């Protein structure tokens, strides 16, 4: 009876994992589509992505409810509990990443008709590719329970951050040359920020996966390190004081 219950519980956990994989797959499709809509000035495609977000929100809600039910009915512990908490946390990250793809489309609506220069098109395509890559690696890390993959995400995100900086510099240079209006420049800067935020969500997911696998979040590890460093400093000060006293 007990085994059967645990079996059902793990089937439920697998189902939650599959739902998150599906949610992430929707997001990884939405990002390049939003980019395509932006580059091609395709309002119809932008509207499709905006409308489709309701389905993503519904799926995210289902995942959340299923996680609550699992906690309430099964009272999980240890790694099982961490798996559910992780699922709930990263569910929010993926849902938010989907919203950011929608924001890119809404940004397009505000600057509709703008023709991006080849350099800006190249940079926005690269940002989009990096955002997709990060999102894919994050879901691979989650589905495989791989702390190794998860730990690679912050370094990968640096590339996206660099691209965002290049993009911002280029749009302000274009504005200075009179190629972009101020409103267009601001909207494009916001759009670059949306891609960058998608990368940040992937990094958050990686941290949650590391917590799921190891039981320690990087924040906790960081805090522990800081505490340890403070203790070492305090000891060093005491030792210094003792040495000075001895010298006197």
């Amino acid at each position: 009876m007990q085994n059967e219950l645990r079996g059902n519980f793990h089937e439920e956990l697998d189902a939650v994992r599959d739902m998150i994989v599906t949610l992430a797959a929707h997001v990884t499709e939405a990002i390049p589509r939003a980019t395509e809509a932006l580059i091609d000035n395709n309002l119809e495609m932008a509207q499709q992505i905006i409308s489709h977000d309701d389905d993503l929100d519904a799926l995210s809600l289902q995942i959340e409810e299923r996680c609550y039910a699992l906690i309430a009915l099964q009272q999980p512990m240890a790694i099982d509990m961490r798996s559910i908490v992780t699922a709930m946390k990263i569910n929010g990250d993926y849902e938010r990443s989907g919203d950011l793809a929608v924001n890119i489309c809404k940004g397009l609506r505000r600057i509709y008709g703008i023709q991006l220069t080849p350099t800006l098109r190249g940079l926005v395509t690269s940002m989009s590719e990096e955002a997709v890559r990060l999102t894919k690696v994050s879901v691979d890390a989650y589905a495989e329970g791989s702390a190794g993959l998860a730990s690679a995400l912050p370094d990968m995100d640096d590339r996206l951050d660099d691209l965002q900086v290049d993009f911002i510099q280029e749009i302000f240079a274009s504005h200075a040359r009179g190629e972009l209006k101020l409103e267009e420049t601001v909207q494009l800067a916001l759009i670059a920020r949306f891609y960058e935020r998608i990368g940040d969500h992937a990094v958050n997911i990686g941290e949650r996966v590391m917590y799921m696998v190891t039981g320690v979040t990087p924040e906790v590890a960081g805090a522990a390190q800081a505490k340890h460093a403070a203790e070492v400093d305090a000891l060093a000060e005491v030792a210094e004081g003792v040495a000075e006293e001895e010298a006197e």
Partner: protein
Amino acid sequence: MFWPFLTLVLVIVLGIQIFANRQRELSILGKLNRTLKTAGDDRTEPKSVDSALDRLANMVHSDESDEMPRRVAVAFDAMATGAVLVDADGVEIMRNAKAQPYATGRHGDALIENVIQDRLQDALRGESTDEELRLHGPPEKFLLVVGSPLVESGELLGAVVLVDDVSEQQRLDQVRRDFVANVSHELRTPVGALSLLSETLEGETDPQIIDQFLGRIQDESTRLAGLIDDLLDLSRIEGGIDAESVAVDLGAVLHESASAVRAAADKKQITISIEIDDALSIIGDRSQLISAVTNLFTNAIKYTDENGSVSGRLVAHGDEIAIVVEDTGIGIPQRDVQRVFERFYRVDRGRAASTGGTGLGLSIVRNVAINHGGRVELTSQEGVGSTFSMILPVSGAELTTRPASVQLGELDG
């Protein structure tokens, strides 16, 4: 599109029926056999019937009952179409090899599985539905997912979903559509301009306007002649007509091609540099190679802004030599990278009028590479530049002679 699906559905229904019939026969034979065995304990006569039925049951069990579903399963797995079969309760009975990765897949595969499950639900409610799915990739994929209920004499036996990858079909359709649109555009533009200009000239007396219009007629005629020349070149190269197989110094080819475009480069203050470390030669057709490399340089200069740079170099790697032409131009969007070698394909048709050209240059490059047993590769990033590599085998190749009417999809994919 409809008939293959119908056939497949019929095969599956037949498979299920054969399987069900065999099971029923076996069960009946088993029952009959047991009854006869019990009766046979008391009587001697029916024992021959008993053993005959035993033999029959064994035969059916060992051969046909095992073989038939196995054959259906193997046939199922061999299909290029993904197929998932469920019973009336929605329990999965069979999933062929093609559809297997979707079940545990991530990213695009997870979305395909999602659509499969939706179509199965519809099919179990008795509705036949289909959905076209586009996955951004890369590589970009187009899939057609069709769900059908399996009904026999009004009874729902289950449902089947078929997943067909129609990406290649979509791509070829797109190539055909674009080809027709592009070729009509390229041909009609100069012809239309000539007709309009000559019509306007009729009755015109102002010598200044006449001179101006005559100049434009001259330009349009030159453009049309250029298009016809390129078409003839392409046809000659495709057909391998007059192709020769001699030792060709690739360094000399690079220099000669660069000289041919230097005037155009100077006009835009574009620097052309040639980098050749060793004397490298291949067996091939010199004029074809010069034509191809000149086209690569012309293209690079055309799409590079003023004060940019274009470089040509030779890279030897194993049994191959690459003629590489790199520019600091506007670059090519990723989705067009595979398509720029198609005849008349334009990345930006609106820009074509200002850049000129016939839209056949890169198609000529690819055909020359193919004729020499080689290939072309392209890497590009918008705003950064493009690198075209024509990779040719050192030993050269028997210059291929191909029929002029080569399939569009074969050459322009």
